[in-house]
């Protein structure tokens, strides 16, 4: 979670010496430049979290907007818990925004397994028999693999997908996930076990 700390390559707009907590306090009291500074510091991390779940620029942008809007309106809650890191608090909001977007997407599915063409299925079988999804090919091949992987993951429930991405793509531990989502560690483990079983079933259809 330390990677969420300030990004030195991005020039802050105001008061660079101030801590996140101080800026959050100032923003809560109506200092708009303080919130802009927080945005500049953390926008990249929030966009990266969103990109773990969504590939289209518009979707990533929506999640970033939603996360910062929620954060701004909930600054009072953060100020009441000064012991927490602003970055971790914001990451929690961002993951929850992703989860909400996944649920919305599930209600209006645009790419499900039914969208997996014969060509996709043949490519997937080939990859599975070659024992892996990792694509070391050219950019186009990587994009095709990414597209296919996204189609297959769309078959999972939002909860399953959330936990798997946090475990496998973000490399978080069950305790970290539990802390971020406000779940118990055992709930995270049970959910991860079920999610892996679901993914095995999806992949098993192509073996």
């Amino acid at each position, binding site marked *: 979670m330390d990677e969420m700390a300030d990004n030195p390559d991005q020039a802050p707009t105001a008061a660079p010496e101030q801590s996140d907590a101080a800026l959050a306090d100032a923003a809560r009291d109506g200092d708009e430049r303080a919130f*802009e500074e927080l*945005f500049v510091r953390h*926008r*990249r991390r*929030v*966009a*990266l979290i*969103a*990109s*773990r*779940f*969504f*590939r289209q*620029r518009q979707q*990533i*942008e929506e999640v*970033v*907007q*939603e996360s*910062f*809007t929620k954060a*701004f*309106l909930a600054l009072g809650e953060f100020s009441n818990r000064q012991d927490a890191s602003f970055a971790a608090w914001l990451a929690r909001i961002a993951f929850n925004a992703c989860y909400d977007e996944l649920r919305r997407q599930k209600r209006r599915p645009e790419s499900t397994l039914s969208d997996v063409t014969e060509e996709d299925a043949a490519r997937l079988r080939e*990859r*599975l028999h070659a*024992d*892996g*999804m*990792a*694509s070391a090919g050219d950019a186009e091949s990587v994009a095709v*693999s*990414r597209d296919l*992987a*996204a189609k*297959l*993951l769309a078959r999972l429930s939002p909860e399953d997908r959330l936990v*798997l*991405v946090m*475990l*496998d*793509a973000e490399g978080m531990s069950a305790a970290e996930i539990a802390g971020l989502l406000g779940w118990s560690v055992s709930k995270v483990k049970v959910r991860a076990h079920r999610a*892996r079983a679901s*993914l*095995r079933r999806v*992949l*098993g259809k192509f*073996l």
Partner: protein
Amino acid sequence: MAGEKRDAERGARLDRIGRELVRASTGDEREAEAVARSPFLYAKIRTGVEAERRRREEGEGWFALFAVAWRAVPALALVAVLALALFLSAGAGEMTTAGLGDEALLGARDGDIEQVVFASAHTPSSDDVLTTIIGGDEKEGAR
């Protein structure tokens, strides 16, 4: 035994492929970078914040209205109960004084009608008188 081992191996293989699948599904970091550096992103966030504030204020307005209405419910209920009690007590009093006899039907002030009705009820009609006379004549004739 061999089947179980084969299933376990197959499961482990699918889990490994699944992990790779999840990693492969994530978006391009360059895309995230481009979004983060989008020039109008902060302006859009400010607009979103203002819209959300307005929405909440409107929601609070409705909520306040409902709260006032909710507080008014007991007072309105009390008024309704009192009105009902008043209505019932007035109706019951009228029933008691009027009673269910002739007076209730005819009214206390309609003395003339009452007399006529009672007169018509107790006075013999001309047919009765005629029948009585004829009956008396027949009896005397029979003697």
